[in-house]
């Protein structure tokens, strides 16, 4: 498992807001191994979403290198980035972000359609994936007819559609009640254990984070490993893991 999927070195992200600069990520280093299930925690505004967006190629690093599957995506132009997103990344969002005019199966299929997969192949795989996330029989339902937990399952199936190198989940349980929360975490955990899916999950919930292999704290623009045994966040961790 020391095979490295993601290697970030010296990553800095600066937003310009008029005269003021916001720099949520400062000289950040991070390595994620293949098959790892990692949780990223940290106070609101600490840059968790920013980090995930840069890894997911929907935001650009200001400086530094981001090696995804050995390719530096930090300096890639948009004309190539969309293919990385399509083929290597699977996003799971807090608000599910399903397309409301498509049913569960079509939402999953769309990801494959964008990747140019053939129709028969697409449908077959969409049904399989929906089975994997426990939604057999609900394939024809549009999002508004699914519960929130079910919607997030569709989103997870969609994220898996193109066999991505990494799943990026930004507070996937943030909008769910306790039961659904546990089920979604269990689903992600199962995927990781049974299929070896690499997952990075941002969460505010310690209990959710506790179900992962590795817990990272994002603070002052950098990540620090958190000792899982304590199962508790340090009040003001300024740890620097370099």
């Amino acid at each position, binding site marked *: 498992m020391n095979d490295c999927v993601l290697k970030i070195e010296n990553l800095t992200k600066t937003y310009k807001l008029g005269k003021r600069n916001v720099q949520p990520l400062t000289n950040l280093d991070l390595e994620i191994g293949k098959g790892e299930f990692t949780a990223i925690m940290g106070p609101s505004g600490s840059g968790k979403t920013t980090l995930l967006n840069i890894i*997911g190629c*929907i*935001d650009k690093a200001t400086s530094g290198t981001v090696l995804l599957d050995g390719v530096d995506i930090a300096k890639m132009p948009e004309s190539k980035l*969309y*293919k990385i997103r399509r083929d290597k990344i699977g996003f799971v969002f807090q608000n599910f*972000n399903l*397309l*409301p*005019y498509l049913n569960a199966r079509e939402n999953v299929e769309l990801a494959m359609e*964008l990747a140019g997969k053939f129709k028969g192949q697409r449908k077959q795989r969409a049904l399989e994936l929906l089975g994997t996330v426990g939604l057999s029989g609900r394939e024809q339902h549009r999002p508004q007819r699914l519960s929130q937990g079910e919607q997030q399952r569709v989103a997870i199936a969609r994220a898996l559609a193109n066999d991505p190198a990494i799943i990026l989940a930004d507070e996937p349980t943030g909008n769910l009640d306790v039961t659904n929360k546990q089920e979604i975490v269990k689903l992600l955990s199962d995927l990781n254990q049974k299929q070896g899916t690499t997952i990075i999950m941002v969460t505010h919930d310690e209990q959710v984070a506790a179900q992962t292999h590795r817990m990272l704290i994002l603070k002052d623009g950098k990540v620090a490993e958190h000792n899982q045994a304590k199962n508790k966040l340090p009040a003001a961790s300024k740890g620097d893991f370099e």
Partner: protein
Amino acid sequence: MGILSRATRNLARRKTRAVLVIAALSLALTMLIVLPPSIQARQDITRQAVDYFVEINDYVTSTVTLSATEIQCSYPVGFDPEIVFSGKDVWFTQPLMNDTIYSQVLSIPDIINVIPLLRVLGTPDRPYAITGVPLDNASYQMDRTILPTNITAGRNLEVGDKGVVVLDLWTAQMIINPNIRAWLSDTGELVLNETTIEKLTAMVGGTITIEGHEFTVVGLAGESLTTGGAIMSLADAWEITNTTGQAWQYRIFADDINNVNTITARIQSIDPKLEVTSGVSQQNIAEPLKNQITTLTQTAQNNLNQIQGIGLMEIGIAVVAATAIILFLMLYSVRERTKEIGTLKAMGAGNGTILGQFMTEGVLLSLIAAVIAIALSVFVLPLLASLLLPAPVAFGPSIGPVSMSNQTLILYPDGVYFGDDPNFIPGQESNIIAASITPQILLMGLGAALLLGALGTLYPALKAARTKPAEAMRYE
């Protein structure tokens, strides 16, 4: 699940909005489809009217046959019920002017020449007229129309000719076969077949006897306004008809155009029964008519300009409206779906895919509207055209009928009548300008919808394609 069905579903998401937009768009496109053929139809009818005005103008111009300094006088043709010919035809009388009148005319000052012409009408024994023309250089130089102008065989009369005759075709025909009086076409023209023409031509060089005198036929002439029958020298005609010194018409030439009216008045004072016409009097009659026709032409032209101006402006408005409707709808739609666009991009949709998705939606919308507009335009064409465009001037009774001697000009919605029946009513009269929707126009409408749809969608679609996913995902 293709791009097209996704576009359809997206449009169906906001049904009321889609219906309203399609309705507005259909109206704009209907305008676009209806206007060009309607403008064309109005253009056509105006052109037709102007063409007729030109025709009438030519007709009026042709009624001025005398040069400005020429005066003609004669007694009017009389009608004598006592003279009955062939059992049913009545014969006319042509009163002649005697040499007393001639000398009185000659004594009027400012006259440079007087040409006497003789015409003695036919009799039961001689079913054709005799025309006598002075064959001297001075007269012929002054007015070349005293001699036949269209010789069809042989030669014309020449200065100094004596004992020779030129026959018009009608006369020649009746000399060969007096029983067959005439072969007339519907329009009153003499109809001659080739054998008849050959027979008539063979007469040239031969001799005929008129009123007991032998004449050599030197030529044949077509019909002419002033001369006709057997045409010969004035001296010969005087001799064989015993009318020496008399004339049916004098052609009088004034030395100056300013003296024409005075001379005309003096001639009239010789005998009030004389018919006196001058180039000046003909022009005085023709002038107001020509002015009226000029005014009508200008009115029609101005009206057409107005129609074209307003029509083009409305086409412009329709184009802008259609484009704007699509532009704003799609802009709104892009804004509303920002987060969706972000999601699609996060899933790996390229800029081209997003662009294509929105372009498809915009163009689909305008095509749906185009189909409705096409169906609509077939029904509302006349109504809409009359609402959108000023009425063509030829449409109203304001300028018709115009009367001119015995000719009447009436302007109808579907054409112009110019003829001698003032009560003429065309058979299929309708109040509809005959504009029709042709397949080409429909195709053009469809093309225009496609183009405007694409044009209006381009900017919003580009905006959507350029959406930055990270920012779009934060958008609420």
